[in-house]
């Protein structure tokens, strides 16, 4: 059980990261707000508690791997990487600018701490399987984490990969679905339903956990559970709210790919206690 002090500290970190995400998106005047805010608590749990990594040595052999399959949540990833010390926080102001190492979607060749290239949906789980297999072949202890979106589950390749990970018995692989129930065109359930996700992955022979994706304690417990699971990969279905933390963004598909305006930023920071 993680102690309360740890959880409180992580919650404070997640709050700061939300602020940084909103500021960088506002400065860029472009990018994906809703899905970055829904994913940030899971990313906080990974980058600031669960994963072994060394910001001073991004290619450290003993590191765990993280793949952001829903690459449009890049602002959430960049916020974590900057906070952890992979690059200076000032760089966040260059998001999506010409020549920036912070591309619209994650680019392993440009950004320290980014493991693979994602952005075209449905490919990250396959890449994560490859990383997990490579670690196993090289007899490295490394674990591989991958974050997907629930709308992304509509991509056929996800299910090819869903078959493969348990087939290879990859217990060093842990996938998390940021299940915020919304995609660009509206509700996932209305656009093309993917429910029930839990039974689907159970049927594909995964170890499946469902948690409140904004409950840091629950996330840490699920990640610990995943680490102890032998012989199969774990899928954590994190129930989340798109736009979480900023009430006027919450549950709104319209804020999928829209940055906060100047006024919205002021209002949002006030609501987050960072006016």
């Amino acid at each position, binding site marked *: 059980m993680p102690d309360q002090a740890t959880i409180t500290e992580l919650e404070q970190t997640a709050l700061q990261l939300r602020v940084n995400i909103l500021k960088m998106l506002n400065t860029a005047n472009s990018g994906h707000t809703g899905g970055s805010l829904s994913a940030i608590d899971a990313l906080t749990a990974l980058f600031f508690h669960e994963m072994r990594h060394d910001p001073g040595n991004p290619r450290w052999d003993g590191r765990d*791997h993280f*793949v952001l399959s829903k690459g449009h949540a890049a602002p959430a990833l960049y916020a974590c990487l900057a906070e952890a010390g992979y690059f200076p926080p000032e760089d966040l102001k260059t998001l999506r600018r010409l020549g920036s190492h912070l591309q619209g979607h994650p*680019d*392993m*060749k440009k950004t320290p701490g980014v*493991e*693979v*290239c*994602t*952005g*075209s949906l*449905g*490919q*990250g*789980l*396959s*890449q*994560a*399987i*490859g*990383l*997990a*297999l*490579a*670690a196993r*072949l*090289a007899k490295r202890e490394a674990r591989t984490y991958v974050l997907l979106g629930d709308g992304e589950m509509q991509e*056929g*390749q996800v299910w*090819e*990969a869903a*078959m*493969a990970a348990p087939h*290879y018995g990859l217990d060093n692989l842990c996938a998390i679905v940021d299940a915020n129930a919304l995609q660009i065109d509206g509700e996932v359930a209305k656009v093309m339903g993917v429910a029930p996700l839990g039974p689907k992955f159970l049927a594909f022979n995964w170890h499946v956990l469902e948690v409140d994706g904004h409950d840091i304690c629950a996330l840490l417990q699920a990640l610990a559970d995943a680490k102890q699971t032998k012989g199969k990969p774990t899928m954590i279905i994190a129930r989340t709210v798109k736009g979480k933390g900023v009430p006027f963004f919450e549950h709104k598909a319209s804020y999928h790919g829209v940055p906060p305006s100047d006024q919205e930023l002021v209002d949002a920071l006030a609501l987050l206690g960072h006016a």
Partner: protein
Amino acid sequence: MIATRDAYGKTLLELGRENPRIVVLDADLSGSTKTGIFAKEFPERFFNVGIAEANMVGIAAGLAAGGMIPFASTFAVFASGRAFEQIRQSLAYPGLPVNIVATHGGITVGEDGGSHQSVEDLAIMRSLPNMTVLCPADGPETSAAIRAIAGYKGPVYVRLGRAKVPVVFPNGCDFTIGKGVTLRPGSDMTFVTTGLMTAQALEAAVILETAGISARVVHMASLKPFDVDLLLQAARETGAIVTAEEHSVIGGLGGVVCETLAEGCPVPVERVGLRDVFGQSGTAEELLIHYGLTPGHLVEAAQRVLRRK
């Protein structure tokens, strides 16, 4: 006569014995692509992903990012078509060193018909930034090419064939990515060829010699990077070019030759290949005749281009 895929399977096994970082992936075609030879000796380094090419490419990307040297194989039509966007996003965009070795390229797939005969794969792969595209002529050159790409810095697409083809190169020949080879000197015109059409052009050159025509044969296994200097030299020295490929005349060898000559040394060109059509069922031999890919057709193309000189 040896099929390029057989040379691939044998070389892969040798590489596997030499380097523990070599890993191989296949999508339920390991008997046909010959990766099964590697699989038998190194089951722990072989991943048959089932009939799921997109996932295969993604896993290969992850393996490369994790420090392995992956070779991923399936038929050319599936590698370049079904998994195109995975190759683009997961391999070419980051420039990850994954070798896509596609067998059953072109019409010599034969009886399976047009659905299984890729006539566009070289064009598709050539269009991707960071990609290297190779199409060896025979078994020995395939072995050399496979050795050359193991440990190469970026993604590579290699097109191999199903059918047995004549041997052009000696065993143990060299292979340099980006370099062409002049296989026969000549001064009146040049055949610029790739894959199994190189052997056809060498035959055509012999026929032309009896008619008093001196035909050069330049083999270009490396479609990208392309040996621009060797092509321009042939164009300057012989003044007429015939390209020959077991592929559409659009975007492959004919494409790169015309693009290069238009900028560097405009001379008459005849392109021999599939004229913007799909293939069909038949034996490999019948199909080469039907689609105009024989030494006789190359002789006619040479005569046409000489009239335009």
